[in-house]
C-alpha cells in the first residue's frame, strides 16, 4: 500500500486524529476502515457513482489553512427567522452555543455517547463505511456531531437545528447518530454556512434509526455556502409503521454531493423525499438518493426538482430497490429540471431494481426550458418580463416548498428562493 490516494494526498485525510481514536471499543473498526480506504482510495472520474462529480479532484487541489482562527461569526445571519427551535452551532469544529438540555431526551456529543457505550449498536452499522470512500473518511476523521435519542413515546417539541459554520479554508467532518424510539417523533434541521470567499470542505454523515411507529422529519438546507466542497451522507433505517420525511434544498456551493438513503426494513413504512436544487454560477449539485424496500406493504414517494442557470450542473440519481419479499410496495419517483442557459447541464438517472412482482412503481424525469408561451401570456397581462420569469420558475420550484410542514421554514425558503429567481437585468 505505497501509492494509495491517502498516502499521496495528505489533504484528503485529516492530519489531526478523529474522535474514533479515543474510543477503544471502535479500534478494530477504525483499523479496518483505514485499511479499506487505503486499498480503494477515493473515487476518480471513472467511478460509476462519481462520474460527473469531481469531488476527489477538487479536494486534491484544495489548500487548507488549518491555523485559521475562527472570527466572531454572527449566527443570526444564518438562523431561520421566526423558527422556535433549539439551535446548536459549530464554528469550524468548536461548539459556540451551550449544549442543549432537553428534558426526557438524550442529546450529547456523539464522542461522549460512544465512550459510554451508547449507540455502538448502530454506529457505522447503518451507514457502512465501505459503501463510499467519503463515508469511510468521515468515520475516521469526524471530530464533532451529536447523539440524539428520543425515548419511546416522546416528542421533540421544538426542531433541533444543527448549524455548521465553516470560517476560512477549513476542513471538517461531523457525524450524527439519531435514534428515534417507538412512537417517538422529532425534527432535525441541518443548516450550513461558510464565511468569506475561501473554499472549505465539510463532510457530514448522519445515521438514523427510526423504530416502529416513530417519525423523523429531516432537513438539509444548503444555502449560505459559496465555494464550499460539501459531502453529505444520510442513511436512515426504518422499522414497521414508521414515517420519514426528508427535505433537501441546495441553493449554493461549489460541489455539493448529497447521498440520501432510506432503508425500509419494516412493513407499512412511509417515506417522502423532497428536494430542490436551484443552481447558478459554476455550482455543481449531485443528489444520489436510494430507497430500499425490504419488506411488504410500504410506500415511498420522491420529488426532486432542479433549476440550473449559468454554467451550473445538476445531477440526480434515484435508486429504488424492491426486494423479493417486498410485495405490495408502492414506490414513486419524479425528477423535473429546467435549464436556463446554454451552458447549464443536468444528468438525471432513475435506477429501479425490482425483484417482487406485485408492486406499483413509477418514475419520470423531464428536462426543459422556461415555457416561452406562458411568458408571453403573462406579459400580455402587463407583467414585466423579469416578474413573469420569476413567477413561472417559482411555480415550478414551489411544489417542493409547499410541502414543508414548518411554516417558518417554509417562509424562509419562499423568501430565499424568490429572491434568487427575481432578476433585474432582463
Amino acid at each position, binding site marked *: 500500500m505505497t501509492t494509495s490516494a491517502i498516502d499521496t494526498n495528505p489533504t484528503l485525510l485529516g492530519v489531526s486524529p478523529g474522535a474514533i481514536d479515543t474510543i477503544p471499543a471502535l479500534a478494530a473498526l477504525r483499523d479496518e476502515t483505514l485499511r479499506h480506504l487505503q486499498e480503494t482510495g477515493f473515487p476518480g472520474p471513472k467511478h460509476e457513482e462519481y462520474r460527473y462529480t469531481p469531488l476527489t479532484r477538487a479536494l486534491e487541489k484544495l489548500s487548507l489553512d488549518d491555523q485559521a482562527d475562527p472570527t466572531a461569526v454572527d449566527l443570526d445571519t444564518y438562523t431561520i427567522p421566526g423558527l422556535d427551535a433549539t439551535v446548536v452551532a459549530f464554528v469550524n469544529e468548536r461548539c459556540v452555543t451551550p449544549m442543549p438540555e432537553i428534558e426526557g431526551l438524550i442529546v450529547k456529543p456523539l464522542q461522549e455517547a460512544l465512550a459510554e457505550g451508547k449507540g455502538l449498536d448502530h454506529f457505522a452499522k447503518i451507514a457502512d463505511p465501505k459503501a463510499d470512500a467519503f463515508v469511510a473518511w468521515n468515520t475516521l476523521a469526524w471530530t464533532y456531531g451529536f447523539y440524539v435519542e428520543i425515548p419511546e413515546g416522546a416528542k421533540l417539541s421544538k426542531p433541533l437545528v444543527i448549524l455548521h459554520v465553516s470560517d476560512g479554508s477549513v476542513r471538517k467532518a461531523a457525524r450524527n447518530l439519531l435514534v428515534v424510539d417507538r412512537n417517538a417523533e422529532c425534527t432535525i434541521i441541518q443548516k450550513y454556512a461558510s464565511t468569506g470567499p475561501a473554499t472549505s470542505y465539510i463532510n457530514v454523515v448522519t445515521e438514523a434509526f427510526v423504530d416502529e411507529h416513530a417519525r423523523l422529519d429531516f432537513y438539509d438546507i444548503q444555502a449560505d455556502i459559496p465555494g464550499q466542497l460539501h459531502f453529505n451522507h444520510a442513511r436512515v433505517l426504518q422499522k414497521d409503521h414508521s414515517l420519514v420525511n426528508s427535505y433537501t434544498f441546495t441553493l449554493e456551493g461549489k460541489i455539493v454531493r448529497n447521498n440520501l438513503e432510506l432503508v425500509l426494513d419494516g412493513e407499512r413504512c412511509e417515506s417522502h423525499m423532497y428536494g430542490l436544487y436551484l443552481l447558478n454560477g459554476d455550482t455543481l449539485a449531485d443528489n444520489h438518493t436510494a430507497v430500499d424496500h425490504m419488506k411488504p406493504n410500504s410506500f415511498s414517494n420522491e420529488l426532486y426538482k432542479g433549476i440550473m442557470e449559468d454554467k451550473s450542473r445538476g445531477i440526480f440519481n434515484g435508486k429504488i430497490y424492491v426486494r423479493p419479499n417486498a410485495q405490495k410496495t408502492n414506490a414513486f419517483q419524479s425528477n423535473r429540471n429546467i435549464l436556463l442557459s446554454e451552458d447549464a447541464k443536468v444528468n438525471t438517472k432513475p435506477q429501479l431494481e425490482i425483484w417482487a412482482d406485485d408492486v406499483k412503481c413509477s418514475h419520470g424525469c423531464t428536462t426543459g426550458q422556461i415555457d416561452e408561451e406562458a411568458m408571453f*401570456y403573462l406579459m*400580455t*397581462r*402587463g407583467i414585466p*418580463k423579469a416578474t413573469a420569469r420569476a413567477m413561472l420558475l417559482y*411555480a415550478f420550484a*414551489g411544489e417542493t416548498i409547499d410541502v414543508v410542514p414548518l411554516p417558518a421554514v417554509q417562509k424562509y425558503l419562499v423568501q430565499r428562493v424568490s429572491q434568487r429567481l427575481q432578476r433585474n437585468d432582463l
Partner: protein
Amino acid sequence: MLSIKNLCAKIGDNQILNGIDLDVKPGEIHAIMGPNGSGKSTLASVLAGREEFEVTDGSVDFLGKDLLEMSPDERARDGIFMAFQYPVEIPGVSTINFMKTAVNQVRSHRGLPALDAVSFLGLMKEKMKLVDIDQSLLNRSLNEGFSGGEKKRNEIFQLAMLDPRLAILDETDSGLDIDALRIVADGVNKLMTKDKSIIVVTHYQRLLEYIVPDFVHVLYRGKIVKSGGKELAAELEAKGYDWVKDSVAA
C-alpha cells in the same frame, strides 16, 4: 385610438401580412373576418407583441405612441388586452395570484395605488359575476384542466379586471357552446364604453350576433380586401368566403 398603416409581417420566410390599413376610433367595434390562413390571428398577435413575428414594414400608432417599439407588457399596461384563441395552461400559478400582480402593475402605471387584499377581492367578486365564473376555478392553477368554455370565460374575466382601452378578441367564439357564447358576449358588452374599442377576430358570424360591430373587414392573403358595416358579416355568412376570393381574383 389605433391607427395601422401598411402593416407587413412574416414568420420565418413566410410573409403573412401584406399591408394592412386600419383605423379604430374610441367607442368603435371592428370585426376582422376571413378564411383560415388569411392572417387574422397573426394580426392579433402582432398587435399584442408576439416576438415570433417580424414586422417588415408599416407602422402602428396606439394613443399617440409607436406600438411596435413597445414590449408586450408595456402594451398591456398602456391599455391593450388580447383574449387568446388558445389560453395557456400554467401549472402552479393561480388566476387570482397572477391577476393580483397584473392589476397592480397596470394600476401603478396609471398612477393609482396598489389594491389591498380586501379591495382586490371586492373587485374580483364584481367581475366574477360578469362572466359567471366560480372562485374555486380562479384559485386553481391557471387554465389547467379547464374546459374550453371556462378558459374563454377566464379570458373575459381578466379583460374585466384589467380594464383596457382596446380589447382584441382572437377567435373567442371557437370552442364555445351557445350558452357560453352568450355569457362571454354579454360580459364584453357590459364592459364596452364610449372611450373603449374592441377588435373581434372571428371566422364565423355567430359571435357578431351578440357583439354587434360597427365595421366589418374581410382579410384575405394578408390584406383587407373588403370593408363594410355589420351587414357585410351576414352577407359573408350567406355567400361564403369563396365569394370574396372570387371578387379579389376578378
